[in-house]
């Protein structure tokens, strides 16, 4: 109390600075979203960015459950997929002139579809938290996966449901024939959804979701029903997952049962966790990194999921706060203006770890080549070098890289950690 009354001006200044920072971040995000397709102009890049935008909305909605509500769902893609299927069917109806729904509002249709199913399934699954909730979500996911084989007309069987966004009625003359135009649609809905989800986390019910996650009993004593709080979070998450599904329908113009299957639900868990479930920005980072790695790696190797799985498991074991959490750890060093001292030790450790990683990847790729790939060619290009996996030399070489890199990283890591502790030390009190 006394600090406030003696230094009101300073407090007001801090409050204004915080406001500027908060709105500034959103403004900067909007500028980046608008500028990206101007800076990176290739077709593949636009396609990847569209994919990223959809993944970001999906991952953010997933984190409303896992990070903010403490509910681990193995079936979140159900709402994504159902929202997408409904959007695709509505788009087909609009194309035939039965309904007047232009493309820009289609994600909202998907969102409402996701919401409807979230209300249906959430009404019983959110009665429990923890492991039982996870089990029910898995049961619902399996249920939908099996149902998709039965309801041919809605899910389109093996081929899925195809649609055509260019046949829908126009709104304000906006056309969506090219990927770039779709990009702006996705960017718009991404921006709006992100603001809405952030705002949700600041509302009383969003705050209560955190309370129910941390201690349901106390939340009940304060007078909130934990079931109701979980249910509201669940419905909101289903709604935004549906929006992501609607965007998917617009972007790819096809949906198959795979989009709502267990693997899709697993992928969103992976990307959210890798990014970090402890902060709002974590899923954004996770979705961008995951999508980038996925599209990059799948060009070079058939085992991209193995590498992402290793990354995921390493995150769970060693940095459960995720990438965003690691960045946050450096806030004290940043504030103390000592972040520069970390660059050297980090670069050394990172380079050595990279050497070990190259060795491991090389060995894995050679195993894959020997076991699975076509046996006509004797060599394979690995890291821009032709390698002959059926001879002993490359195995020894990559093994040497692993050993050298691992030993070096073990030597360097304590030094980097010491530098981190030193840099994070609070500034000396004067």
């Amino acid at each position, binding site marked *: 109390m006394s600090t406030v009354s003696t230094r009101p001006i300073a407090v007001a200044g801090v409050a204004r600075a915080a406001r500027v920072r908060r709105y500034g971040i959103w403004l900067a995000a909007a500028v980046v979203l608008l500028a990206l397709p101007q800076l990176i102009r290739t077709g593949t890049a636009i396609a990847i960015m569209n994919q990223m935008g959809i993944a970001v909305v999906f991952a953010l909605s997933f984190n409303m459950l*896992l990070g903010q509500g*403490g509910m*681990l769902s*193995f079936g979140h893609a159900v709402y994504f997929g159902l929202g997408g299927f409904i959007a695709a069917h509505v788009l087909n109806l609009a194309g035939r002139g039965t309904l007047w729904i232009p493309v820009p509002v289609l994600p909202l249709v998907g969102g409402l579809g996701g919401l409807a199913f979230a209300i249906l399934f959430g009404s*019983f699954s959110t*009665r*429990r938290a*923890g*492991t*039982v909730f*996870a*089990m*029910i979500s*898995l*049961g*619902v996911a*399996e*249920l939908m996966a*099996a*149902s998709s*084989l*039965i*309801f*041919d*007309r*809605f899910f389109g069987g093996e081929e899925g449901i195809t649609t055509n966004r260019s046949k829908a009625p126009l709104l304000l003359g906006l056309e969506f024939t090219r990927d770039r135009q779709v990009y702006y649609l996705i960017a718009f809905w991404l921006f709006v959804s992100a603001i809405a989800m952030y705002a949700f986390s600041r509302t009383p019910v969003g705050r209560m979701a955190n309370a129910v996650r941390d201690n349901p009993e106390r939340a009940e004593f304060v007078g909130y029903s934990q079931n109701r709080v979980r249910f509201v979070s669940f419905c909101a998450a289903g709604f935004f997952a549906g929006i992501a599904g609607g965007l998917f329908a617009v972007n790819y113009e096809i949906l198959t049962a795979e989009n709502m299957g*267990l693997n899709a639900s*697993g992928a969103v*868990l*992976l990307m959210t*966790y890798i990014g970090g479930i402890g902060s709002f920005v974590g899923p954004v980072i996770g979705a961008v990194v995951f999508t980038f790695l996925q599209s990059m790696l799948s060009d070079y190797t058939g*085992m991209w*999921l*193995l590498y992402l*799985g*290793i990354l*995921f*498991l390493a995150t*769970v*074991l060693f940095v*459960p706060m995720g990438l965003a959490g690691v960045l946050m750890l450096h806030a004290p060093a940043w504030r103390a203006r000592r972040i520069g001292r970390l660059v050297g030790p980090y670069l050394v450790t990172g380079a050595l770890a990279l050497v070990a990683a190259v060795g491991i990847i090389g060995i*894995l790729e050679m*195993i*894959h080549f020997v*076991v*699975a790939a076509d046996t006509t060619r004797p060599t394979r290009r690995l890291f821009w070098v032709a390698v002959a996996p059926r001879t002993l030399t490359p195995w020894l070489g990559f093994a040497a890289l692993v050993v050298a890199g691992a030993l070096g990283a073990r030597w360097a890591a304590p030094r980097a950690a010491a530098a981190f502790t030193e840099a994070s030390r609070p500034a000396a009190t004067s």
Partner: protein
Amino acid sequence: MFQLIFFSLLNGLVYGMLLFMLSSGLTLIFGMMGVLNFAHASFYMLGAYFAFTLGLHIGFWPALVIAPVLVGLLGALVERQGLRRVHGFGHIAELIFTFGVAILIEEVVQLVWGRPAKSYQVPVLLDFPLFRVMSSSFPAYKAFMLVVAVAIFAFIFVILTRTRAGLIIQASLTHPGMVAMLGHNVPRVFMVVFGIGSALAALAGVIAGPVLGTFPGMAQVLGSIVFVVVVIGGLGSLTGAFVASLLIGIVQTFAVAMDVSVGGALAAVGVHVNPGSALHDLWKVTIAQVAPILPYVLLVLMLIVRPTGLFGTRET
């Protein structure tokens, strides 16, 4: 009709006992550590693949013993090095960890053995029909599966109820703190149980591989069903796992054998559904098609109506 019922019952029994071999380990691990092990079915898959590869070199019978032992050691390693590390972060983190392990094992299997299914064959010694009833025959291998499963059931039962080690395990299920006070190394008990559970899953894989197929998706196919069994039986209850395994096994085999649809039943009494109507898909669904859904409907219903499961004593 008798033939159909007889063979469905027998096949259901075999399938159910197979499910029990998986669910017994899973439910024990859950009861002790509160961890629902997502990777349990992955150990089952590893068992089948290990046995396939070992079988090429040393034959089926040694592989039947060696593969489960190897997988059991691997399971103990996963518990010691991984699960114990994330234990401090809570059950959600453990669940996520085992989920990651399951993904990794599936990818490694694809890496080492490739994507196509392996032709893991029934051993020649058991490749003959055991008996015939009317026009159908019952393969000896399925009888062998049944014998192994029953032997495992008896083995677990005796160990848990008649030996000192079983006493300690049972006590650790409910009173880990007190067991530790009495001087037992509870984390090591956990590790051993996790290893044995994994080994049992692998044994199930070894004997099921030739019948249900040995392919990278085999863990996912059975994994979710085993979860259903464990939840319906009551998490942590061996009796429940046994009853639920047989229940699900028999229900599924019977449902698959029935080619009756609601629309067909309606047509039999003179009501015909318009093929153009939106619900037409629903009416033409046969019970055989619904079979894969049934366990999950049961699961969801059970969790709503009786979250403790059939024989469970506590909620999660």
